[in-house]
C-alpha cells in the first residue's frame, strides 16, 4: 500500500472582521471543514475561483497561517496547525510553497545564490561551502546555469524566476510542495516548460504536490486527484478521470462549461451559430 504524505481532517478557518463605529464585527468563514488525503509522489489539484478559500488552505497546509479548527497529519505524524508558533525546523523541512507571482516572491535586493542558500542557513547547520554546493546543484536541476548564482531577480524573465522560486522551495528537500497558481502568471510556452520541470522533479525526487489552480486544462494535465472548492466548501473531490468524465456538482459543471475549448469541432459549431445570427439580423 502506498504511503500517505498528507491527510487533512475537517479544517476550518474563520476571519474576524473587526467592526467600526457603524458596522458590526462579523466572522468570515473562509474554509469550512475541508478533508483530503494525498499519497506519496501524487498530485492533488485544488480548483476554484478567487475568494473560494484555496489560498487560505494552502497557507494552512504550509504552516504559514493557523487554522481555526481541524487536524493535519504529515507523513503519519500529527501536526499542530492551530498554533503556528510551534512550527519546528523539522516541519519546515517537510513542506514548502511556491507562490503565484515570481516577481513578488523573490527579494529584488538579494542575489539568486543568497535566496537559495538562506533556507539552509536558517534551518540547518551546514557550512557555507556546503550550502553553496547544494545551491549550485539545485540551479542545475531546475535548468539554470552556474553563472546565474550571482545575479539579481530583475535580470531574469518570469519563467526563469519561477524556476528559481521552485529551486528555493526544494533546497530543504521537502517531501511536500504546495504550488499556489505557479503557472498562471506565465506565457503559454513558458507555462509548458515549468509544468514539464515540475513533472521531472516529481519523478526524480518523489515529491508530493498540492497544486492550486483555476485553469482546468492545466489541472487535467498535471493532477492525479482533483478537489473543487466553492465558497470555502469542497463541492467535488475524486480521481481526475472521474471528475473530468463525470462532474457531479453543478458548480463543477459550470466551471467546465466556462472553460474555453480549442478543438476544431467546437470552433466550427460556434461559427455556424454566428452565421445563423448574422442571417437573422440581416432579415430584420
Amino acid at each position, binding site marked *: 500500500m502506498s504511503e500517505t504524505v498528507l491527510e487533512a481532517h475537517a479544517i476550518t478557518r474563520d476571519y474576524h472582521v473587526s467592526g467600526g463605529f457603524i458596522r458590526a464585527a462579523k466572522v468570515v468563514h473562509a474554509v469550512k471543514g475541508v478533508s483530503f488525503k494525498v499519497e506519496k509522489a501524487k498530485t492533488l489539484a485544488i480548483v476554484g475561483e478567487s475568494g473560494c478559500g484555496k489560498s487560505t488552505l494552502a497557507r494552512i497546509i504550509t504552516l504559514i497561517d493557523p487554522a481555526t479548527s481541524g487536524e493535519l497529519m504529515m507523513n503519519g505524524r500529527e501536526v499542530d496547525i492551530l498554533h503556528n508558533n510551534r512550527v519546528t525546523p523539522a516541519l519546515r523541512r517537510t513542506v514548502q510553497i511556491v507562490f503565484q507571482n515570481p516577481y513578488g516572491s523573490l527579494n529584488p535586493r538579494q542575489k539568486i545564490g543568497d535566496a537559495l542558500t538562506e533556507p539552509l542557513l536558517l534551518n540547518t547547520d551546514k557550512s557555507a561551502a556546503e550550502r553553496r554546493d547544494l545551491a549550485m546543484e539545485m540551479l542545475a536541476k531546475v535548468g539554470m546555469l552556474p553563472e546565474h548564482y550571482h545575479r539579481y531577480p530583475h535580470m531574469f524573465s518570469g519563467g526563469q524566476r519561477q524556476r528559481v522560486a521552485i529551486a528555493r522551495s526544494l533546497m530543504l528537500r521537502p517531501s511536500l510542495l504546495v504550488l499556489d497558481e505557479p503557472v498562471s502568471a506565465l*506565457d503559454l510556452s513558458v*507555462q509548458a516548460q515549468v509544468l514539464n520541470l515540475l513533472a521531472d522533479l516529481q519523478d526524480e525526487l518523489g515529491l508530493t504536490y498540492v497544486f492550486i489552480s483555476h*485553469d482546468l486544462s492545466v489541472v487535467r*494535465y498535471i493532477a492525479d486527484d482533483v478537489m473543487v472548492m466553492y465558497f470555502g466548501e469542497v463541492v467535488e473531490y475524486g480521481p481526475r478521470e472521474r471528475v473530468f468524465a463525470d462532474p457531479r456538482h453543478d458548480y463543477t459543471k459550470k466551471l467546465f462549461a466556462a472553460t*474555453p475549448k*480549442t478543438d476544431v469541432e467546437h470552433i466550427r459549431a460556434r*461559427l455556424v451559430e454566428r452565421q445563423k445570427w448574422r442571417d437573422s439580423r440581416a432579415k430584420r
Partner: protein
Amino acid sequence: MPLLDIQNLTVTFATMKGPFTAVDGISMHVDHDEVLAIVGESGSGKSVAMLAVMGLLPDTAAVTADSLTFDGRNLLSMSLKERRTVIGKDMSMIFQEPVASLNPCFTVGFQIMESLRTHLHMSEREARNKTVELLHQVGITDAPEKMRAFPHQLSGGQCQRAMIAMAISCKPKLLIADEPTTALDVTIQKQILDLLMQLQAEYGMALIIITHDMGVVAETADRVVVQYNGRKMEEADVLSLFAAPQNAYTRALLSALPENATGDRLPTVADFRLNDAAGGPTP
C-alpha cells in the same frame, strides 16, 4: 474597403541602450462586423501596435507606417485635436486591469457620462438616462445604484462591465479589447466574452481582441493574426489556424496547450526556437 488598414507599421522606442523596435513592419486590416484576434506572448508587440493605432504611446515611441487609415481617414497626418474626436468615439479600447483603468476618484456613472457629454454633447439628464441604459445593457442589474459607486466598491468583473459600457457608449465602429479577461476567473471570463460577442453582433462593430490565450481566440475570433517578436508570423481564419497551422511558431504554440498533450511531457516553444536556430523551417 477595410475599416482599419495598417500597412508596414513599425514602432521604435528610444531607450538608454539605443533604439528598440517593438513592432517590426506589421500589416493587417479589420473589416466592419468582424472579430480579429491578435495572439502572441508578452513582448510580441501586440499591445504596442494597437496603442499606436489609438495614438496612446508616449513621446519616446517613433511610429512609422506606409499607411494607417481608419474609416477612410489617415491617422498618421491627423492632428491631435482631430484624433481626440475619433478615439473614445468611433474607436475605443478596453484594457486588462479593469480596476486600474477606471479613475478611482470619480464614480463609475460620472466617468461614463463624461464620454457621452464630450463626444455626443448630451445634456446632464440625457447622459444620465443613457448611462443607466448602458449599464443595463452590459448586465449590471441595479444600474442607478451602481452609477454612484466608486471603482473600488465594484468587483473586477463589474469594473470590466463598466469599462465596456464606457467603450460602447458612443456606438464605436471599432472596439479594441486588450486582454479583456486575463485578470478574471474563468466563469467571469465566459460572461465577459459572451457580452463582448453579443454587443459586437448587435452593433455590427469591428472587434479586435488582443490575447495570449488560445482558448479566448477559439471562442471569439473570425480571423487571427499570430505575432512573435514584433513580427507577424501567420494570418488565417480561425478554423484553418486551429485545424492546419502553417507557421512553425503557431504549431509550437498550439502543441504547448495542456489539453493537446499527447505524451508524458508537453512540447514547448523552446523546441521551436532550437529548430529555428538550427536552420529549421523559418517563419
